[in-house]
């Protein structure tokens, strides 16, 4: 069913009894051309673009739980392309462009809201660094505005501008950045892929990867064996576990990242705002809750829940930037598994096992990358060559030294 104002009106007057499921709940067939492991945003986008851009529709997405139950439902929904490194900017800008046309492409309301992403700076040195990043963005055709203190104050008057410790000197604004509705992104891609013939198989956990003569031939799952010409991993925090089934060790550690939402209030935070003197970022959902987060907990974890010191650290960051937040109650917090790579940048590449493709290393920035990650991964799987904007995301960069260390923190995942 195509969604439109007419369909909405027709279903409203007929009692909303005629809506059909947005995608089929498929059972796994014996074999496929391509198996995408992981029914999150990246996996579903990959399947969608395989079918739409490359005409490969004999594809199944295998998800161990329900689609969107992992990090796709645990992020803070921010989209932006305000990067500095040359290996990153073109990729994230391509993702931004895909976000801008996503809803029309998918015929699905993903609530993409380009409300602007504002990074605050608190010293002259930090302003210089922001000027450099803004210039790098502009050289690559990305919008960036360096704002002075008064311009920032006009946008976000509710912040603490005169904090003795962290006075706000200005900010770097990407007006095209913003937020999107995370669940709707997953559902939209699932529906789009399903309409093009992709099987979306839920409650189907991969337990083994079949290989013959160094070539992948399929997977073992909790719902039986499934054959495949190509197997593509898009499983974020579980990447190391899946790769180990094919005898691979990855430059990845899994860490937990927590996020929080406050009780709903009237519209207050009209942008995405990030604190420059600590790690804290905040936006307001359409329901009114303030959505915010900060650092990862900093130790290996598969628990999908974190500890109190990080909760305290995030709230301290919030209080330093925006003291009024202290009057609000936190109603929910949650944790997701971050596939922290050793240089803080992702991997979209082939593996030493023929026919096995890898999409991982998104650290805590995977949501904004969803469209381009799927686009570039599909390109790689279909053509066996990297997409130009993702060509730097190689698995062997840890051997060749061509790292993309956006943070400049070295090979320590808990510092990225």
């Amino acid at each position: 069913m195509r969604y439109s104002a007419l369909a909405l009106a027709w279903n409203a007057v007929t009692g909303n009894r005629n809506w059909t499921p947005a995608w089929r709940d498929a059972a796994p067939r014996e074999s496929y051309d391509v198996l995408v492991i992981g029914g999150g945003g990246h996996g579903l986008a990959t399947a969608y673009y395989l079918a739409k851009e490359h005409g490969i529709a004999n594809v199944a997405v295998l998800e161990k739980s329900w689609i969107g139950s992992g990090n796709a439902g645990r992020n803070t929904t921010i989209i932006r392309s305000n990067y500095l490194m040359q290996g990153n900017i073109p990729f994230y800008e391509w993702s931004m462009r895909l976000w801008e046309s996503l809803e029309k492409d998918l015929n699905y309301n993903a609530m993409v809201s380009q409300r602007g992403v504002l990074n605050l700076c608190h010293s002259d040195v930090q302003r210089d660094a922001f000027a450099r990043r803004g210039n790098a963005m502009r050289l690559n055709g990305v919008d960036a505005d360096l704002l002075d203190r008064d311009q920032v104050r006009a946008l976000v008057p509710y912040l603490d501008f005169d904090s003795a410790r962290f006075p706000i000197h200005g900010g770097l604004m990407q007006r095209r950045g913003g937020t999107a509705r995370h669940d709707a992104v997953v559902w939209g891609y699932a529906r789009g892929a399903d309409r093009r013939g992709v099987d979306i198989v839920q409650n189907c956990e991969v337990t083994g990867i079949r290989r013959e003569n160094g070539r992948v031939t399929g997977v073992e799952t909790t719902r039986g064996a499934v054959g495949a010409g190509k197997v593509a991993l898009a499983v974020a925090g579980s990447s190391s576990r899946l790769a180990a089934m094919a005898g691979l060790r990855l430059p990845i550690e899994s860490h937990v990242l927590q996020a929080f939402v406050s009780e709903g209030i009237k519209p207050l935070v009209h942008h995405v705002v990030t604190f420059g003197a600590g790690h804290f970022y905040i936006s307001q959902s359409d329901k009114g809750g303030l959505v915010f987060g900060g650092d990862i907990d900093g130790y290996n974890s598969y628990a999908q829940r974190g500890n109190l010191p990080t909760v305290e650290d995030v709230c301290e960051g919030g209080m330093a930037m925006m003291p009024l937040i202290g009057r609000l109650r936190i109603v929910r917090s949650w944790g997701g598994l971050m596939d922290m790579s050793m240089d803080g940048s992702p991997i979209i590449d082939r593996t030493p096992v023929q026919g096995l493709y890898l999409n991982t290393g998104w650290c805590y920035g995977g949501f904004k990358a969803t469209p381009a990650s799927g686009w570039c991964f599909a390109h790689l799987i279909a053509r066996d060559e990297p997409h130009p904007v993702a060509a730097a995301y190689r698995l062997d960069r840890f051997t060749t030294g061509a790292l993309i260390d956006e943070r400049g923190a070295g090979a320590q995942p808990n510092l990225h």
Partner: protein
Amino acid sequence: MRIACPHCGVRDVREFAYLGDATVTRPDPGAPDALARFIDYVYLRDNPAGAHHELWYHAAGCQAWLKVTRDTRTHDIAGVESLNERSLGGPEDGTP
């Protein structure tokens, strides 16, 4: 999460700093395959879902390095031992 430091007793995790996997060993720089082994040492990790041997530094306490065995699925700590240079495992060739 709390860690039972062998010297100071049970302490809150915020007293400790995390370094990561305790099973990786710095290779001998003179080995013929030293480059490949250093890449392995610096970048590649088992990253298990389950028991993980890891290094924690008691920064706000006795400043000892500890080897902690923790379940990464539950954060339950199965064991903590204090490290000295010998148990950190010096060069692979066994020389002190």
